[in-house]
C-alpha cells in the first residue's frame, strides 16, 4: 500500500515538474493556442475540394437559343465563372494550355436541328492536369446535358428512377470531412513534437541526468512525462470539438465518452512515436526535423486529407501502420455518424495493437538513454 502510494507520489512529482516546464515554453504555448485556431479556420472556412469559380470557354458554332440555353443551364450549376466565347478550336486549346480555362464546351453547327430530332451531341474538353476538378466538372456537365430536352417538352422520364440520399452530411460539404478529423491532426502534431523535443532538449541541457539521479524509477519518469500531455490532449479534444460546434454548427453526433475512449490509446501511441524519435535525434533541431517528416506522410497516408479508400493497394495498407489512420476512422464514425462504442471496436483494437508494439519498441530504445 505505502509502496503503491510512494510510486504515485513520484509520478505526481515528475508530472508537476513537466507541467511547469511546458507552461513556460513559448513554442509549446503557441502550438496549443495558435495551431488549433489556424487549422480550424483553414479547414472549416478556407479549403474546399469541390470546384468553384471555374473558368471555361465556349465554342458555339450553333449560335441559337437552344445552344445559349444549354450554356445558361451549365452556368446555373453555380460552379462556373461567366464563359468566354472563342472563335475556334486553337484559341480554346491555347487558353486551356495556358491554364486560363479548365473546360471547353463545343456546340456543333447542327445542334438545334439534332436536338429536335433527339440526337444532339456536344463535346467537352477538360484540362487533365487538374484531375480532381476536371472529373467533377465532367460529372456536373453530364448531369445537365442528360436532363436537357428539346423545346417545351419536359425532361424525358428516366429509365430507372434513382432516389439519392447523402447521409450524415446532406449537402456533401467538404468542411465536415476535414473538421471531423481535425483533432487527429492537432494531437499528432502536439504529441509527436512535444514528446520528442522534450526528451532531446533535456538531454542537451543535462537535466535528464539530474532526473535520473532522483530516487524515481525510469517507469515513474516516463509516466510523469506522459500524464500532463494526455491531460492537455483531452482538453484540446474538448475545446476544439466545442469550438467546431459553436462556430460551424457541427457537434459530435456520438457520445463524448466514446471519443475519450478512442483518444487515449491514440495519444499514448503518438507519444510513444515521440519517444522513438527522441532516440533517433541527437539535437533539438534534428528532433523537430524528424518529427516534421514523420507528421507529413502520416497526414497524407492516414486519410485525414484525402479518402484512403481511393489509394492504391500497398499504399493503403502502409497507411494502416499509422495510429492516425485508425483514429480518424473512429473520429469520423463517432463525430459525423454518431457511432457507439460497439461500432468502433475495430479501430479501437487496431489502435491498442499499435500502442503495444510502439511501447515495446520505445521501452527497448529508452533504457539505454536513461542509464
Amino acid at each position: 500500500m505505502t509502496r503503491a502510494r510512494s510510486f504515485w507520489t513520484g509520478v505526481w512529482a515528475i508530472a508537476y515538474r513537466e507541467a511547469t516546464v511546458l507552461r513556460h515554453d513559448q513554442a509549446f504555448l503557441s502550438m496549443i493556442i495558435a495551431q488549433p485556431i489556424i487549422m480550424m479556420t483553414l479547414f472549416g472556412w478556407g479549403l474546399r475540394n469541390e470546384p468553384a469559380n471555374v473558368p471555361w470557354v465556349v465554342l458555339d458554332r450553333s449560335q441559337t437559343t437552344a445552344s445559349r440555353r444549354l450554356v445558361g443551364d451549365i452556368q446555373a450549376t453555380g460552379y462556373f465563372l461567366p464563359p468566354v466565347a472563342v472563335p475556334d478550336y486553337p484559341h480554346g486549346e491555347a487558353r486551356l494550355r495556358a491554364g486560363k480555362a479548365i473546360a471547353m464546351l463545343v456546340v456543333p453547327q447542327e445542334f438545334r436541328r439534332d436536338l429536335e430530332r433527339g440526337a444532339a451531341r456536344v463535346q467537352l474538353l477538360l484540362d487533365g492536369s487538374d484531375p480532381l476538378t476536371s472529373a467533377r466538372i465532367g460529372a456536373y456537365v453530364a448531369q445537365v446535358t442528360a436532363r436537357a430536352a428539346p423545346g417545351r417538352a419536359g425532361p424525358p422520364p428516366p429509365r430507372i428512377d434513382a432516389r439519392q440520399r447523402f447521409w450524415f452530411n446532406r449537402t456533401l460539404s467538404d468542411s465536415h470531412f476535414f473538421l471531423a478529423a481535425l483533432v487527429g491532426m492537432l494531437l499528432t502534431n502536439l504529441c509527436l513534437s512535444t514528446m520528442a523535443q522534450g526528451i532531446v532538449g533535456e538531454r542537451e541541457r543535462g537535466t535528464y541526468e539530474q532526473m535520473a539521479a532522483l530516487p524515481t524509477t525510469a517507469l515513474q519518469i516516463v509516466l510523469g512525462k506522459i500524464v500532463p500531455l494526455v491531460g492537455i490532449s483531452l482538453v484540446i479534444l474538448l475545446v476544439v470539438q466545442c469550438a467546431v460546434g459553436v462556430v460551424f454548427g457541427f457537434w459530435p453526433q456520438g457520445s463524448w465518452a466514446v471519443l475519450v475512449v478512442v483518444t487515449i490509446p491514440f495519444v499514448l501511441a503518438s507519444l510513444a512515436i515521440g519517444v522513438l524519435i527522441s532516440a533517433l535525434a541527437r539535437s533539438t533541431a534534428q528532433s523537430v526535423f524528424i518529427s516534421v517528416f514523420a507528421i507529413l506522410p502520416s497526414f497524407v497516408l492516414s486519410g485525414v486529407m484525402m479518402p484512403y479508400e481511393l489509394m492504391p493497394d500497398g499504399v493503403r495498407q502502409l497507411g494502416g501502420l499509422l495510429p492516425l489512420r485508425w483514429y480518424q476512422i473512429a473520429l469520423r464514425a463517432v463525430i459525423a455518424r454518431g457511432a457507439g462504442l460497439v461500432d468502433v471496436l475495430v479501430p479501437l483494437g487496431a489502435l491498442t495493437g499499435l500502442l503495444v508494439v510502439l511501447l515495446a519498441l520505445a521501452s527497448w530504445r529508452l533504457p539505454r538513454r536513461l542509464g
Partner: protein
Amino acid sequence: MSWRRLRTLVQREVRATFRDPFTVAVLITVPLAALLTFGFVLSTEVNELPLAVLDADDTPASRRLLADIDASDAFRVEPVRNRAELERGLVRGRTTAAVVIPPGFGRRAERSDGVRPPEVQLSYDGAEAVLAGNAEGALRALVGASGAALVGAGSAGGIALTTRALFNPTLDGRPFMVAGVFGFVLSFLTTLITAVTIVNERLTGTFDQLQVTPATAIEIVLGKLLPLGAVFSLDLLLMMVLAGIVLGVWPQGNVVVFLLVSMGYVFMSLALGLVISASSVTAAEAVQKTVMFSIPLVQLSGFAFPIRSMPTILQWLTEVFPATHYIRITRAIYIRAAALDTLLPELLWLAVFAALLAWLAVRTVEARA
C-alpha cells in the same frame, strides 16, 4: 568580388555539409520519399469499394442490375439482410454507399410504360464527402447503363456528351501530384536546411569567423548558397528520373526551361532560409519558424487544394506566396507543355521576389558584420 575567395568559401561549405551524415541523408531521402508518398495517393477513380446491397425485390431484373454493378471494377457488392444492417454498415464506415431495390422493381421494369419507371434507392456516407461524390458518379453511371439495357432503349432524351481530358486523358492523379511535390520539396526543404545550418554556425561561432575574413557579404552569401544549390539541383534531377521511372510521369514540356526555372527558385528559397536564420536564436527556433511558414505553403499554394475554391481574401493571400507561382509554372510545363510566353506573369513575380530576397540576404549578412 574575388573568384578565388568565393572558391575557397564554396570548398569550405562543401566539406562542412558532407561531414554531417544526418544532413546528407535528409537531403537525399526526403525529396524522394515525399515524391513517392504524395505521388500515389491522389486518385479520382473508385476501385473495389464495398457496396451494401439490399435486394427486397429479388426478381431476375433486380439480380441482373446487381450483377452488372458487381461486374464493374468500381464496386464490390456485399448483400445485407435488412435496413438495420445496412444502416449499421454506413455508421461503422464499413460501406460508403448502399443500394436498396424495393419490391416491385422487376414488375415495373417489365411493364416499362415510362409513367412509373422502376425505382432504386441509393445512399451514400456523406461524412466521406470526396469518396461519396466519386461513388455517386460511378454508381449513377452503372445504374443508368444497366437500366437502359433492362428497360430497353426507349425515348432517348438528353444530349449526348463526349468528354475528353486533354494533357492527361485518364485523369490520373499522379502527374498533378508529382508536379506539386517539386514545389513543396524545393520550397520547404531548401529553406529549412539553410536556416538550420546557418543558425548552427552562428551558435558555434564559425559564422563570426567568416565575417572577419576579407570576404564580402555577397561572397559569403554566394559561398553558402552555391553548394546547397548544387545539391538541390541534383535532387531535382533525381526526382525527375524517379518520377519518370517509378510513377511514369515525365515532363511534357521543355525540360531545360523547367530545370532553369526550378534552379532559380531553389536559390530564392535558400535565400529565404538565410533571412529566417537571421531572426532565430536557436536551430530549433529556426526549424519551428520554417514549419509555421510551411503550413500555409502546403495548404494555400494550390499544392493540394484548388485556389479557385477558396474565399476571395485567401485567394489574394495565396498570390503572395512564391510557391503558388512556382507550382503553377511546374504544372504548366510538366503536364500541359505550356509555352514560356504564357508563363511570363508568373515568372516576373518570381523574379521580383528573388531580387527582394537576394537583397535581404546580403543585408542580413552585412548587418551582422
